């Protein structure tokens, strides 16, 4: 292995996320937490669950992309995360096709 390839590899792989990014994400997560708690006191019918879960998904995405560095990661890692979530959604959907076709009440 030559010195040159080693250097390029190291430079390409490591991306150090700076504190301002972490602070901004932390602030966004706190605002979303306050928002989701506030909205839970307003009666929106079924949309209470929809909005609460949508906010949770946004929060989780922020954590995965920035705290867990996926935004800056290689395609292999991005694909790994995407494949895992896709498989998870597939399992939930297949289970739900059974239950939803029998009796579906309220959520």
């Amino acid at each position, binding site marked *: *292995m030559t010195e040159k*390839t*080693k250097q390029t*590899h*190291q430079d*390409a*792989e*490591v991306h*150090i*996320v*700076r*504190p301002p990014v*972490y*602070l901004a*994400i*932390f602030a966004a*997560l*706190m605002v979303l*937490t*306050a928002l*989701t*708690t506030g909205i*839970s*006191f*307003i*009666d929106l019918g079924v949309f*209470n*669950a929809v909005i*609460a*879960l949508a*906010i*949770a998904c946004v*929060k*989780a995405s922020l*954590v*995965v992309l920035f*705290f*867990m560095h996926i935004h800056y*990661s*290689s395609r*292999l*890692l991005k694909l*790994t*995360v995407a494949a*895992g*979530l896709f*498989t*998870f959604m597939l*399992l*939930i959907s297949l*289970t*739900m096709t059974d*239950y939803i076709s029998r009796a*579906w*009440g*309220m*959520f």
Partner: protein
Amino acid sequence: MDSQSIATTPEELESSGLPHAHDHPAFMRHHFEDIGQQREAASFGMWVFLLTEVMFFGGLFCAYLIFRNWYHPAFVAGSNTLDITLGTTNTAVLIGSSFTMAMAVYSAEMRRKGQLILFLVLTIVLGSVFLGIKAVEYHQKYVDHHIPGMNFSIQEFVHPTNPKAIPLAPDMAEKTQLYFFLYFAMTGMHALHMIIGIGMLFFLVARASKGAFTAGHVMPIENFGLYWHFVDIVWIFLFPLLYLISRYR
């Protein structure tokens, strides 16, 4: 003899006095081409582990979804016995601990030992505060006879003290046990992950104080960070599902 087979950490290698003529840092394993490849492999392995964890918690979430649909009134009644103030505080505390953990990874990358130890200790403190608040909540459930199988009482659900609550028929009120079973199973497994995480943090602080992660070997901190953020994400979904989506208005 391959010195890598004996010395597994930079300090050990230094103190072992074995000759090491290779042109690479001591923490790099011989079967990797370079440090970049080693880091990529470690991150990939950690993510595959985290995906198995997604499937594990996913099963509990799926059970919650189905039973909530079947016994909706019981789940609404059970959900309203939780303390929303404590739940929101705990969410903020846990997000704070994720932030300090992210800063710990940054400190390790910047090779600042003191700062790394500070942020790891802060993560331990915030994680412990979370568990403390959780213990207060669990104790309240014990006092209220809302732990399934332990002198469980449906009194509060058949004859509610909260004027906004809708009284349940005794057979539906019994189903609140299922809500509390899932509540304890999900928050309990989450808390167990945090207890294991805090244990590992103590280990990491001890190693960090010897300078193990501030000489280029950031991977253990980085991978533990991934684990800690994953535990945070589980709570991000548990909080709305257990506390928020069915408040009485």
